[in-house]
């Protein structure tokens, strides 16, 4: 016992020295713990900054100058007028020739209420944005804004505007940021995603089943597996270039719809974009699908085989139903990737300025992320506001998709 004590005495710090050693090690531990924690919280801060930065642009004061003061047009506010009254306003405030031209284009009787309202705004009020402010300025510097408007734009009206609104969702693209909307972009994105799923789901699940249930461990199958893993790491813009050459150019007769009697000029259509997106998300879908199928217990398969089921019967009736929640979750994650993906769409040639709704798979189209990219690249500050609003639309779409994925996962895992 005494020898051991002496050993300890000689080798390790004792008494005061030991206490100091432990205290300094603890202090070091606490410091680094704080560093690690702050690194993790950094992500939280970045996310909040991003959201703040977007929200800051979505709302705020706008100084608008009207050609005619809206209050002088009628005794009621404009948006409470009915169609006949609006037509009367239009007739009373436009030159006769101009009104007749409009009537010839499409008779007033055939136009809807909102169309006539838009005409009043466009032809009579002619609003012009002189200056816009962010939400933060509008909140804290209201007095300064008032003073600036009073001195710089005495004619202008100061309005608090939410750049995102129902009309933002339902009006098509326009070169005037006050009246631009994401309708065509939203529909384009939805069309593209629908067709992408149509192709990608069966092929992705099929490949996952093949690799998990049929493929034996030989060279050929190992190459397929490695290849899928490698494809998941290929930059998305490379897929765009592949899509440009294969789907837009080589398969032009099919993707432009010429073979189906719906010619749209060239192959830069929804189908071409969807097929490109399919190639892009297939590796993700296959890898997720494989994990879901691998998680199905072997005993289920053996029980099925034991009852005399064939391989496909086993897969169809036992493996797939059990793997389905996992497969759905993986699919939804892949779809959210496809919705936000921009680079391949630029290369494949989504148009930036389209005002007509896409009417089918062979239509020319634009998509939400393309619209965000286009608006973000414009130097005028008004476009930053609508870019931010489009970002909100995109993020809400993605969040609801992810919420669906979480709900699906929870519901099915409880049942299982």
């Amino acid at each position, binding site marked *: 016992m005494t020898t051991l004590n002496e050993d300890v005495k000689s080798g390790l710090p004792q008494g005061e020295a030991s206490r100091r050693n432990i205290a300094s090690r603890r202090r070091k531990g606490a410091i680094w713990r704080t560093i690690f924690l702050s690194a993790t919280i950094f992500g939280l801060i970045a996310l909040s900054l991003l959201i703040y930065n977007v929200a800051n642009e979505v709302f705020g004061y706008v100084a608008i100058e009207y050609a005619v003061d809206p209050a002088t047009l009628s005794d009621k506010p404009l948006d409470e007028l009915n169609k006949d009254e609006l037509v009367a306003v239009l007739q009373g405030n436009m030159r006769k020739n101009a009104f007749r031209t409009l009537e010839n284009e499409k008779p007033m009787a055939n136009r809807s209420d909102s169309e006539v309202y838009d005409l009043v705004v466009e032809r009579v009020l002619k609003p012009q944005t002189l200056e816009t402010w962010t939400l933060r300025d509008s909140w804290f510097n209201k007095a300064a804004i008032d003073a600036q408007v009073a001195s710089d734009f005495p004619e202008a009206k100061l309005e608090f505007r939410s750049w995102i609104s129902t009309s933002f969702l339902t009006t098509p693209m326009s070169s005037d940021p006050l009246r631009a909307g994401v309708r065509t972009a939203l529909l384009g994105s939805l069309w593209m995603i629908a067709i992408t799923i149509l192709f990608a789901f069966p092929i992705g699940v099929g490949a996952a089943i093949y690799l998990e249930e049929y493929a034996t461990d030989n060279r050929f199958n190992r190459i397929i597996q490695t290849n899928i893993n490698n494809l998941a790491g290929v930059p998305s813009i490379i897929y765009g270039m592949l899509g440009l050459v294969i789907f837009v150019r080589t398969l032009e007769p099919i993707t432009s719809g010429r073979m189906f009697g719906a010619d749209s000029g060239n192959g830069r259509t929804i189908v071409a974009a969807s097929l490109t997106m399919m190639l892009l998300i297939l590796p993700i879908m296959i890898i997720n699908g494989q994990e879901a199928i691998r998680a199905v217990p072997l005993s289920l398969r053996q029980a099925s085989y034991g009852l005399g089921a064939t391989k496909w019967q086993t897969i169809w009736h036992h493996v797939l139903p059990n793997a389905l929640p996992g497969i759905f979750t993986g699919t939804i994650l892949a779809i959210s990737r496809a919705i936000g*993906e921009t680079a391949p769409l630029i290369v494949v040639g989504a148009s930036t300025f389209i005002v007509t709704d896409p009417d089918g798979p062979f239509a020319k189209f634009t998509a939400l992320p393309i619209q965000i990219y286009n608006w973000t690249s414009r130097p005028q500050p008004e476009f930053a506001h609508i870019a931010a609003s489009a970002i909100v639309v995109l993020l809400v779409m993605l969040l609801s998709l992810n919420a669906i994925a979480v709900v699906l996962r929870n519901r099915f895992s409880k049942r299982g």
Partner: protein
Amino acid sequence: MDDKVSIGMDSRRITTSQRETTRPFSLKKQSRLGENIIQGFLLFCGVLSMFTTIGIVIVLGSESIAFFRQVSIVEFLTNTVWSPQIDEFGILPLLLSTLLTSTIAMFIALPTGLAAAIYLSEYASRRARSILKPVLEVLAGVPTVVYGYFALKFMTPLLKSVFGEANVNIYNMASAGLVMGIMIIPLVSSMSEDALSAVPRALREGAYGLGATRLETAIKVVLPAGISGIIAAFVVAISRAVGETMIVAVAAGAKPTFTFNPFEAAETMTGHIARISGGDLSYASIDYNSIFAIGLTLFLMTLGLNMISRRLVRRFREVYE
């Protein structure tokens, strides 16, 4: 040959079934047409991914060959001017800005991602994890074009106010790189955390048993044990940064410039491909062919990085199985 086998199989009949039915019962594996068709379709699905790779190689290769007929590979790799209007095709300015933005991104993403991974795997309580992990997942799910917006409308003004209005260009590599770093943090942290969690508990308990603090255990025992997985995560992160398009397309500038100054505007490889193919491009022009030569360079770089990473992961898996 087939007949003989089936006769051989038929002779092993089961007596009970013989009693019940007059037909002979065969245990031979029967070939079912439906099953074969299904298996064929599934095989096709699996093989389709091979066609994708072959397609990428052929497309990039053939268009690049058309390009290299007009521009020598040596000029492509050594010229420091990329200016198609005056027939100068040197990839160096594009490559340099790609590497600069990626380096800046790595300075943010690697330390932060690794520190977050250590916190989540070694320190965090269940409650803290349940809050912090979803935040990182959301950060990973934000589309890159949104990050581009963030770089241009938030990071650039921030850099301008810190380093002076005159020193920082509106479009600059620093803001693109910094935001790209933020974007890549979740990738690094989730892959590194997987690597750290794969280190067996026994190693940690051994370290605690010897009187190590939590920090000492994490840094001196767990981290070295998971190091190849962490390096793999780093390599994937680099490949991700090199291939990232939208952030640099929005925020880094639209003119190929050979500069080491991160506050200057300079177009990257991906940004150039996006800008050129976004315009109305004639398929017969050398501009069109040139983006495929850039694409091929990009593809080879990312493929190489991803293969290195996968090899590292495989090595680290072998340690504890």
